[in-house]
């Protein structure tokens, strides 16, 4: 079964600085999808970024970017110019290699942004 590991239960960053959240996953498939979701205190989970494994180029969305290392099975999220509104729980997720159509989430990293 696919597993997703987020080794940092909690992280903190100063406002305007950069922070990187780690994620590793386990799969024997070559084609799959990776995601970062954000869950603020409002509990509304929203997609931050999505990466297709067959694409070499790292996905970016404004201040959010990923470092996708396929061989190392690593998918870290970098948040630049951190803002107070970035404070949330961040979940890494893996989907859909081979015959597996389930989205598997990591346990999450709680990010605190200090003013």
């Amino acid at each position, binding site marked *: 079964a696919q597993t997703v590991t*987020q080794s940092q*239960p909690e992280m903190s960053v100063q406002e305007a600085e950069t922070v990187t959240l780690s994620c590793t996953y386990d799969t024997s498939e070559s084609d799959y*999808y990776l995601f970062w*979701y954000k869950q603020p205190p*409002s*509990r*509304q*989970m*929203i*997609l931050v970024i*999505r990466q297709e494994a067959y694409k070499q180029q790292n996905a970016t969305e404004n201040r959010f970017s990923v470092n996708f290392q396929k061989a190392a099975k690593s998918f870290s999220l970098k948040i630049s110019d951190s803002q107070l509104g970035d404070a949330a729980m961040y*979940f890494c997720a893996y*989907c*859909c290699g081979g015959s597996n*159509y*389930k*989205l*598997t*989430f*990591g*346990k*999450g990293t709680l990010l605190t942004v200090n003013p």
Partner: protein
Amino acid sequence: DVKVTQSSRYLVKRTGEKVFLECVQDMDHENMFWYRQDPGLGLRLIYFSYDVKMKEKGDIPEGYSVSREKKERFSLILESASTNQTSMYLCASSTGVWEKLFFGSGTQLSVL
């Protein structure tokens, strides 16, 4: 704006009660999901549905069932609620499991 609506934000039930959690989406999505979220465990898939009247077990289906009679509505049923089912329940929908999931705001269920 697209929307996934869960009928209750907070719910308190007693052990042994039959509990219905309702979820409605207005995006005409084929796929709908029920997740359970517990501190330190992340999100775990209970059931998902890829079409009306179709369902698949997720990773932790025991003690739960689902119903999808109409495309827009996906219900999670706790046949006989137990205290270990106290949790946050999240509903989501998408056009495909590899696509972006749209989530509801969650139902915090307490079983006493």
